[in-house]
């Protein structure tokens, strides 16, 4: 089955994307972001979790957290291309909030069948959530977890939980016998301890979460299958966030090199600056095209969703690395200072680059699909 030429990116999608861009531009310009998250520069600082909760509430009221929730359980049931457009703008603003985390949980729950309806309803009503499915080694093998489920309780630790301190719920993966179950747990439930990580990225928080005899019920006992179905959307949306952030990096750097004069010319006059910035643009466009292709595949061509999503995230990880490096390099001395905004995106992108699989990992998965696994 082939995809619609226009990705089904119609009126509605364009409208939402534009209004989101306007929303962040009006309410959360970068200087505000910097003031909020860059207060403490001490390199040995513990993790902070600074974010604009009232503004986030506005986003919830706009229904952005319910976009991906099926209509059957009170959500808006929007296609992934629409959501990708919103997330691209989120990335452009580098806005600290649990939107991606909640969307990731939503797509996973949506793949869990009837057992997830209660949880999805909570999200439709404005609850936020994050996936707690990664082990200490951050293996991207979906069956890997350091949490066990037995006698109705969860025990163990989930690592690299994104925006853990901003969310109400966790969707936890745990070994149950030889299988993998997914569990819906409140972050304030008895036995749940959130241990914040001190991370480089100032626009997100991250934690490892300990579970001590946390009583829970399985949303599904076929966790791997559910995650497999959800990951293409999850990879694609992170790639979309990266694209938006990279576009910010490109435009900000272009503006700087057009004003900054050296040797009687703006820096942008010099091909040593001009051509690499063109290569940044080329990477961004490649990635953006692959993002909407992947999103559209999730919506209309599930048989190829994983293939295209691997392309999107592999491309995004390369884009994040290159765009970040060039943005600091071409800002020169000023770009190396804390007061300049570029490091906020530099750090967010480095975080995104390595999250949910780096470029090489996604290409290896892609090769398994296109060439076949190595015997």
């Amino acid at each position, binding site marked *: 089955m082939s995809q619609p030429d226009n990705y089904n990116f119609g009126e509605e999608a364009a409208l939402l994307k534009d209004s989101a861009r306007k929303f962040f531009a009006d309410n959360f310009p970068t200087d505000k972001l910097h003031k909020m998250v860059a207060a403490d520069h001490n390199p040995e600082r513990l993790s902070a979790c600074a974010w604009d909760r009232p503004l986030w509430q506005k986003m919830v009221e706009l229904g952005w957290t319910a976009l991906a929730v099926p209509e059957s359980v009170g959500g808006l049931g929007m296609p992934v291309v629409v959501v990708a457009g919103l997330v691209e703008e989120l990335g452009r603003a580098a806005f600290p909030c649990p939107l991606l985390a909640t969307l990731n949980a939503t797509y996973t729950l949506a793949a869990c069948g009837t057992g997830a309806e209660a949880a999805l309803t909570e999200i439709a009503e404005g609850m936020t959530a994050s996936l707690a499915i990664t082990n200490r080694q951050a293996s991207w093998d979906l069956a890997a977890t350091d949490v066990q489920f037995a006698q109705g309780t969860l025990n163990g630790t989930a690592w690299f939980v994104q925006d853990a301190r901003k969310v109400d719920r966790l969707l936890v993966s745990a070994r149950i016998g030889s299988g993998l179950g997914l569990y819906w747990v409140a972050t304030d439930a008895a036995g749940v301890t959130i241990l914040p990580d001190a991370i480089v990225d100032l626009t997100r928080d991250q934690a490892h979460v300990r579970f001590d005899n946390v009583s829970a019920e399985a949303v599904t006992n076929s966790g791997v299958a559910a995650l497999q179905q959800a990951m293409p959307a999850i990879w694609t949306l992170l790639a979309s966030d990266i694209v938006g952030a990279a576009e910010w990096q490109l435009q900000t750097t272009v503006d700087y090199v057009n004003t900054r004069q050296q040797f009687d010319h703006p820096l942008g006059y010099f*091909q040593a600056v001009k*051509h690499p910035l*063109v290569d940044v643009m*080329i990477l961004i*466009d490649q990635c953006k095209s692959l993002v*909407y292709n992947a999103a559209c595949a999730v919506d209309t061509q599930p048989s190829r969703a994983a293939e295209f999503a691997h*392309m999107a995230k592999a491309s995004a990880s390369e884009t994040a690395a290159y765009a970040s490096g060039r943005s600091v390099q071409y800002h020169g001395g000023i770009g190396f200072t804390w007061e300049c905004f570029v490091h906020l995106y530099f750090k967010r992108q480095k975080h995104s680059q390595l999250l949910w699989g780096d470029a090489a990992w996604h*290409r*290896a998965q892609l090769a398994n699909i296109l060439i076949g696994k190595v015997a």
Partner: protein
Amino acid sequence: MSESARQDTPEQAEFRQYCRQWLQHNKPGEPPVRLPLSPLEIMTTEQLAYLRAWQQSAYDAGLIGCDYPVAVGGRGRSDCQRVANEEMIGARTPFLPNVIGLGMAAPTVFYHGQAALKERVLPRLFSGEDIWCQGFSEPGAGSDLASVQTFAERKGDKWVINGHKVWTSLAHFAEWMIILLRTDRAHKYDGLSYFVVPIRAALGKGVTVRPLIKITGETGFNEVIFENLEVEDSYRLDEVGKGWQVAMTTLLHERGAGELKTPQSGGMKSKSTHATNTANLIELARTTVRNGQPASDDPLLRDRIMQLVIRETGLGQNQRRARVSALQDHPSRLLLQNKLLASEIAQDTAAVALEVEGASASLYLGDENAPSGGQWPMAYMNSYGMTIAAGTSEVQRNILGERVLGLAKSK
């Protein structure tokens, strides 16, 4: 039913049906000769005859130039060439030999030529009876096209041309040449004028065509020397001194960014032709044993091949996204990347293929043991033609940086 079909206007839908039926019965059979990789590499008259016959029949059937007015040999349809192209390519037809004529000369003559000229030359251009070539580059004017020195001096209602053009593909078969000439040495850009020149008629009488040999050993390019060639003023396109603007129309359509969609067919499988793409690269890796294992099992090669697959797919998706305005910040940002990306992806694809082949990459066309008949080393060498011709990759990056990103002009 394809998505594009689903979005057809009534006219397009009806025309699509017609094209399909016609192609079912009229698609040509296997070529009697080895076909070149592209029209620009046509070397023998046999190749040309076969391809020309195809263009003629497709034209007669109304599949070529159909968006042009009837008066100039078209069918006066609206946005139907796209449909014809989709159907011809879908039917895996041979490509059209008069590629410079259809893609560059036709729209330029159409927008800038006098009525009489259009009516005279365009029908035979569409039918393929007249092959066209392009006289832009010169030994001293490559990236810096506006520095052309080939001079046209006015003599009454005639012009006398003297100078030297290079890289003129198909000139050895061409009746006509579109040519950028200097008519005023005092002004660089405003000193240029644009003509069409009947070179075949003048062979030996003021026009000499000499083949240039590529590093692959292939011929196909030519240099064309003009010695006191007289042409009529009616062959001039647009006003004297407006040559640069006319050339922009040519380049715009060459880039596929012009108003008029270029007629295109192709896709015919032929064992002797060999496209430089990742599908063929993967096939090569599967069938090559390298240090004792299939090359397609080598993790490093798998990674590099996937990098190319991603770039290739990204380029295709760029062209798709270029048609969705809501997903673009700048109108020509994607289109202007096409040539640069296509040529560099091809170059890197061929380079990886040579590493897959290993020592066997030393074997060339004449060697019976050469993998893929030695096509990959040839493709690798030819890729430099792509990154050099029609605006080097360096010039392409300048254009993108200046026109799209708005960075200060380098020169």
